[in-house]
């Protein structure tokens, strides 16, 4: 979707504000949101692409006004309801509705440590034909899907060169909508800065964007 989250190349966002000796979490609740999202992710009722898309669905005015963890919390609340973990009545009351028990055990401390150590790899060891090879000229497709995509607006229709093939990965554009993993090759595609931004960019500079086979066509 052409949302506010896809902000590469936008102007007017102001100076970059840095904070010295910045804490990992500015408030304890931010840490709780971070942990709750990971702990609930272990139920595998969604995937990383679903969670990213839910944040993208935060309306643009709210998206810009909210802090990172406010956005994460707002999207998390919606996702918990969409996937049937809690009802809005339960969220308001803060207590479970009667008879709403869970049979399976929640993520344990040991399993949480394993999750941190191993992560959730999104590469897939399946034979998939690579449409492109390093050095090949490609064009990023011009597409404007209503749903989730990891092809940012600023590269659409632009010419680039395959820098390297990273191998086969889950395709977020379908995975975010529970439409399957559709594993395919991911490449770093090098776009000359001037191809993207015109002559205001330095001629020697470039932007490398990771794109999937379905985002690319031969040039």
């Amino acid at each position, binding site marked *: 979707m052409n949302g506010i989250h896809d902000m590469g190349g936008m102007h007017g966002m102001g100076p970059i504000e840095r904070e010295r000796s910045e804490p990992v979490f500015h*408030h304890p609740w931010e840490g709780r949101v971070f942990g709750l999202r990971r702990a609930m992710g272990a139920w595998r009722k969604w995937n990383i692409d679903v969670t990213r898309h839910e944040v993208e669905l935060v309306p643009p005015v709210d998206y810009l006004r909210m802090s990172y963890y406010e956005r994460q919390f707002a999207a998390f609340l919606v996702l918990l309801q969409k996937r049937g973990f809690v009802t809005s009545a339960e969220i308001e009351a803060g207590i479970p509705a009667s008879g709403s028990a869970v049979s399976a055990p929640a993520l344990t401390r040991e399993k949480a440590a394993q999750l941190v150590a191993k992560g959730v790899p999104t590469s897939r060891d399946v034979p998939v034909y690579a449409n492109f090879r390093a050095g090949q000229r490609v064009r990023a497709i011009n597409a404007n899907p209503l749903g989730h995509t990891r092809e940012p607006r600023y590269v659409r229709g632009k010419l680039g060169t395959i820098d390297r093939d990273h191998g086969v990965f889950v395709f977020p554009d379908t995975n975010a909508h529970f439409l399957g993993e559709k594993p395919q090759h991911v490449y770093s595609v090098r776009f000359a800065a001037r191809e993207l931004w015109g002559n205001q960019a330095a001629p020697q500079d470039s932007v490398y964007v990771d794109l999937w086979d379905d985002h690319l066509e031969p040039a």
Partner: protein
Amino acid sequence: MTTSRGDVLTAALTAAGAAVAPDLARAQEHEDDHDHGHQAVPSDPALRVKALESLLVAKGLVDRDALDELIDTYEHKVGPRNGVRVVARAWTDADYKRRLLTDADAAISELGYGGMQGEHMVVVENTATVHNVVVCTLCSCYPWPVLGLPPVWYKSAPYRSRSVIDPRGVLREFGLDLGDDVEVRVWDSTAELRYLVLPERPANTETLTEQELAALVTRDAMVGVAKVTAKREESTA
């Protein structure tokens, strides 16, 4: 931090002009009409998060020990000091550096690091003529196992929007003015590859040990918004 968010919002709204104001007012009304969903900036996030945590625990969906483990790990155990060790090793061990640049996952795991949001690592090398800088324009992707969780500025609209269109201007804001003899490469983390910059080893550090070199390396240099200097000026890690 609160100030910086306010400034970002002010800047965004100012740029968008007065036309935004009625929409904002409507959005506010909308919030007041509904008690769930995206529209609400929690009036008191601390209370609302606490209530949600209690609910999820009461329903058997979350184990507080696991929750504490996850938070403690990223608050206290994982951070830029991991990446610092990787960089210092690469500067002092040519074989390690070669492995790091060709198979980053394996080389980083040699030092005991890896896992969540670092499952697929790529290391890019800064030199006298090539400067790499990392961003995630679409969200906030960042290599957690080697750098920890990202700072607010990395996740902010100003950094995400401008790094790709004006990397040299962004770097100047960080105090780094690169000449025309340098090629700037911006890496937008749009997939599950996570990028770590191997900074250029500063001059006149030949006599330093791996540990002494490690003390010079900063988080910002490993994102690519700074260089490593022989005298570390301030702690950002």
